[in-house]
């Protein structure tokens, strides 16, 4: 017997997903939440310039409040990182609280605290996923970027996770000039531990700005990454970070293939500031703070920055390029931190438009705002010419351009 349910509304043709983000989503789909700026390592390319804890980091109580908010907003899961999140003494308590509240957690770690006992506990916990960071399939390549002993630490953690039966944990690699040749070895490593390989794009964010010119993949290596993903990438995750390579043609890589900043993703940092994306920790991309009335929910729904990002962009200078629909103009953060205008090509534009644009950039590009790097500790890249230069401090008050795309990244500071 059919129960009358009333007229089910019939709408017109369904618009593309991109169109539908204009109205904003009820909650982010993939939220990144950095739990601390403290870290036991000093990776050369750290996107959050982590190392030292910030005195204003959210307390355990404040963290629990944010978790309560996320549950109320029905955030499905959150990517927890840092710094090294397990450095927080309350890490395990907060992890348990989150999953008990129905908020799934995937946390990124360098493996510091993942001994056999912890691994067993994690394997027995539902709704937890673990991601081990690794940037070389061999110790020499990895440790050049992440520091002596970091490879061994990561491998130990992987062994413990595999031994404990935590299936399908992630091994996440940032692709660099030195590890692109190791793609097959990374895949083998993942197979060995029953893990899933994830490769992501190096962005010139945080300390990454210092090493980006020497470390980012060459044009030829970008093509290598793209064809490797096309051939072997069935089980390989990418966090949709290579959509700018879709302009190489052929079938688009899986994923939404567009910049998610402020639309489907955002970042909550250790002191409670909300940014459009973890690669864009800068005043220009700061949407608000969870400490303000209305908390995170109000920032996500009403921040002017997010409203602007959710407006479909015109494409600017890229509009006339034949590949624009494939690459969508690339990565906002990559452009911003290399000093390129946001309405122009990505610095790694596969058509070469970015390279010519970079040549025209005068002066120093913007720097990631807060710098929590360890003092006096550098990880030499092993290349004699590279020593991290003295940092150009970004003044505390950086004027936010009225429209992100129509002012120079060197917009005057007040």
């Amino acid at each position: 017997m059919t129960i009358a349910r009333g007229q089910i509304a019939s709408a017109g043709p369904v618009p593309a997903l991109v169109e539908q983000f204009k109205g904003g989503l009820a909650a982010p789909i993939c939220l990144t939440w950095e739990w601390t700026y403290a870290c036991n390592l000093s990776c050369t390319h750290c996107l959050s310039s982590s190392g030292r804890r910030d005195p204003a980091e959210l307390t355990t109580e404040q963290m629990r409040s944010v978790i309560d908010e996320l549950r109320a907003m029905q955030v499905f899961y959150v990517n927890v990182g840092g710094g090294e999140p397990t450095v927080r003494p309350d890490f395990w308590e907060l992890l348990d609280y989150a999953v008990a509240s129905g908020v799934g957690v995937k946390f990124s770690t360098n493996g510091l605290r993942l001994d056999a006992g912890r691994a067993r506990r994690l394997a027995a916990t539902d709704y937890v996923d673990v991601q081990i960071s690794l940037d070389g399939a061999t110790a020499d390549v990895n440790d050049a970027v992440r520091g002596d002993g970091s490879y061994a630490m990561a491998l130990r953690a992987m062994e413990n996770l595999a031994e404990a039966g935590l299936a399908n944990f992630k091994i996440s690699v940032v692709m660099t000039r030195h590890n692109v040749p190791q793609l097959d070895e990374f895949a083998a490593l993942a197979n060995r531990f029953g893990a899933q390989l994830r490769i992501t794009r190096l962005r010139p964010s945080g300390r990454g700005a210092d090493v980006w010119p020497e470390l980012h993949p060459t044009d030829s290596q970008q093509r290598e990454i793209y064809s490797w993903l096309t051939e072997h990438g069935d089980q390989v995750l990418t966090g949709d970070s290579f959509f700018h390579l879709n302009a190489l043609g052929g079938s688009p890589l899986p994923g939404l293939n567009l910049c998610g900043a402020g639309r489907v993703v955002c970042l909550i940092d250790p002191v409670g500031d909300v940014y459009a994306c973890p690669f864009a920790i800068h005043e220009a991309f700061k949407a608000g703070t969870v400490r303000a009335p209305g908390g995170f929910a109000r920032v996500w729904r009403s921040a002017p920055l997010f409203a602007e990002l959710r407006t479909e962009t015109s494409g600017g200078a890229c509009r006339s390029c034949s590949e624009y629909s494939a690459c969508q103009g690339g990565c906002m953060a990559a452009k911003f931190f290399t000093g390129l205008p946001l309405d122009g090509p990505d610095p790694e534009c596969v058509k070469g438009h970015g390279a010519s644009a970079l040549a025209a950039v005068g002066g120093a590009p913007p720097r990631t705002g807060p710098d929590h790097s360890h003092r006096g500790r550098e990880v030499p890249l092993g290349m004699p010419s590279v020593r991290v230069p003295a940092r150009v401090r970004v003044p505390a008050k950086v004027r936010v351009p009225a429209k992100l795309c129509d002012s120079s990244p060197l917009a005057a500071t007040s």
Partner: protein
Amino acid sequence: MQQDIRADAALTDAAGPGADDPEITGELLVEEVSIDGMCGVY
């Protein structure tokens, strides 16, 4: 089962002339995306 097949056929028949309007039935109302398929997550 026979009953189900008949029900299906009946459904199609009962749907009427508008049932296979290409403009409407051509669309995909469910789109699956990998939870890892959004950019802006490290």
